[in-house]
């Protein structure tokens, strides 16, 4: 396997996330890096992966990266166009295996915030709100979270829990259904959630435990054995270049 190290941040993140998707799974996909990760998995090792967008599109293999879940490219590549009820009904019934999400903030318990920075009623920054993120995190089999390495976006406690991860006790919140967040993937590392708290589990090429958590506002626990993540392969790079270059 030929590996390359000149990948950019999005490519490091997307290829590591893509490898966590299994062939035959149904995958709820968000816009941006989540889409690149899912499309890479589909083209490299998981041809039977079903990409699902909340607008009602199933089986999507867009030729250009969708700008929104209702974009022309989501529709044109789809093999089934239902409506929101088809997709979210499937999700609520427990029929969707995995989702890839991102957010403005994530905390040490895997809670995601896309609602506000600052107090809810008088925010410093008013963001877009849940969309489907709350619904997906509450109902999907497991959640992968992709994030840039931006310390302002990794916080001990998010300002608003839009999409629930774990409680501070390490328990899944009452009312949520799946395994919850299983990994956060950044260009520097992969974090897992043993006992419901963020741990450093694997490092991307060129990074160590210090740089992987540089700027984070708390001491991040490190797994006993930290794995090394293979950089993007030439094949993965070729696939990702369709959407990133």
């Amino acid at each position: 396997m030929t590996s390359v190290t000149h990948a950019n941040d999005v490519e490091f993140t997307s290829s590591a996330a893509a490898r966590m998707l299994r062939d035959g799974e149904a995958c709820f996909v968000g816009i941006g890096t989540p889409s690149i990760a899912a499309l890479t998995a589909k083209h490299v090792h998981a041809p039977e992966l079903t990409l699902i967008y909340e607008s009602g599109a199933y089986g999507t293999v867009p030729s250009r990266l969708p700008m929104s879940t209702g974009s022309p490219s989501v529709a044109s590549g789809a093999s089934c166009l239902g409506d929101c009820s088809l997709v979210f009904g499937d999700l609520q019934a427990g029929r969707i295996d995995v989702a890839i999400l991102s957010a403005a903030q994530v905390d040490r318990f895997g809670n995601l915030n896309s609602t506000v920075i600052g107090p809810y009623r008088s925010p410093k920054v008013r963001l877009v709100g849940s969309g489907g993120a709350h619904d997906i995190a509450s109902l999907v089999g497991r959640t992968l979270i992709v994030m840039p390495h931006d310390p302002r976006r990794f916080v001990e406690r998010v300002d608003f829990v839009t999409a629930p991860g774990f409680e501070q006790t390490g328990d899944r919140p009452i009312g949520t259904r799946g395994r919850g967040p299983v990994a956060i993937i950044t260009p520097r590392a992969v974090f897992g959630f043993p006992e419901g708290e963020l741990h450093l589990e694997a490092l991307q090429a060129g990074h160590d435990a210090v740089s992987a958590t540089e700027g984070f506002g708390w001491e991040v626990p490190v797994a006993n054995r930290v794995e090394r993540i293979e950089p993007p392969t030439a094949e993965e790079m070729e696939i990702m270049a369709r959407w990133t270059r």
Partner: protein
Amino acid sequence: MASTSRRSLEHSVAENVGDGDTVFLGGFGHAVPFALGHELIRAGKRELSVCRSGADILADQLIAAGCVSSVIFGWIGNPDVGIAHAFRRAIADGTVAWEEWTNWSMVLRLQAAAWGVPYLPAKVLLAGDGPGVIDGLQRVTCPYTGEELAAIPALEPDVALIHAQRADERGNVQMWGVIGDTVVGALASKRIVVSVEEIVADSVVDSSPNLTVIPAHRVTAVCEVPWGAYPSYVEGAYTRDDDHYIEYDRRSRTDEGVQEHLDRWVNVDRDTYLSMIDQRQLATA
């Protein structure tokens, strides 16, 4: 469509939208009813409650134009471009109230109204901070399983404004491509106002009745408005003008900028509007 029929864009809005109404806007990225929405602005409608799951820049423009007193939404922004700047300013200034759900719970609110039940049970809004900021949100215990569920209340808008590919003179509406929550939102509403790319012969509709998403008896008014969803897109007709959304992000960062955008794109007649669209570039049909 009991007694009304084909109407102009102006009449459709004048006759069916009143100040203070709760208005559902159709369009999940696809077929956003910009022509109908812009007519609300030109007609000077006030104190509207605007509702839908994922609200794009049309909702932001209605807020900027002063038509809106509250927003009921699951998401509000500029799809993959950024945040809704006029909405952000309005909540900072306290000029707009808002009620924040999620995309699935918004769909369920509309579905409950469409089915005539007071609420639907759901497995969301049980965790996180979302339930705590919705006044009066209740839970129910399932009488069969004992499971605790959120009771998502019905939302019955006074009027739905939607755009679709085509309809006939009787009012049967045909739509394909991304539906999102457009059809459920229309069926939830007391009145349904539809703009279409084309009004077609009854025989066209009758030859493909599966494509009819809203039957005539529910439809209040239909108007023919080609390019009525621009700058969003209509499957089979034209693609999305992504640059327009990016330009709106830039201009809407200030009050002055957003007013200039509205002057250019809303406070104009239809022919001028059409002349500003790069139709050759965007047409897919």
